[in-house]
């Protein structure tokens, strides 16, 4: 696979597809997290996770 694969297509699959398991996971991306970190939420910037001021 080359770098010509669009990020949005990769994220469609990695954030909403794939095997999902609960249990011993320390960083499972739950649905709530998807809203925060999904590509769409990040690009439309009016959301809760604003960056702290840079040091």
């Amino acid at each position, binding site marked *: 696979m080359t770098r010509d694969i*669009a*990020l949005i297509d990769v994220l469609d699959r990695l954030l909403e597809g794939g095997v999902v398991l609960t249990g011993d996971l320390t960083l499972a991306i739950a649905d709530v997290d998807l*809203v925060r970190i999904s590509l769409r939420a990040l690009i439309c910037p*009016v959301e809760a996770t604003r960056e702290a001021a840079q040091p």
Partner: protein
Amino acid sequence: MTGEPARAASHRFATEPETVERDLARLALTIVELLRQLMERQAVHRVERGDLTADEEERIGTTLMLLDDRMTHLLERFGLTRDELNLDLGPLGTLLPND
């Protein structure tokens, strides 16, 4: 990475006053734009139903025209484009339609 808009890299905000003001403007104008679009849709719906008098059509049409004009000026004032006005609601999609 092909296919990614240039804006993608700049989604993080500095906390300079102008940026904060611009972001607040973007949020406020998004809401105003939502209302404007709803009013527009409602007006068009009534025109198509034919239940407006000529006078009402004139008044409503003029109001919408002025509203749109006002919005254009506000956008210019804050250096925003209409495309930038939107809110993402995650699984619910975006607040405003994307066309």
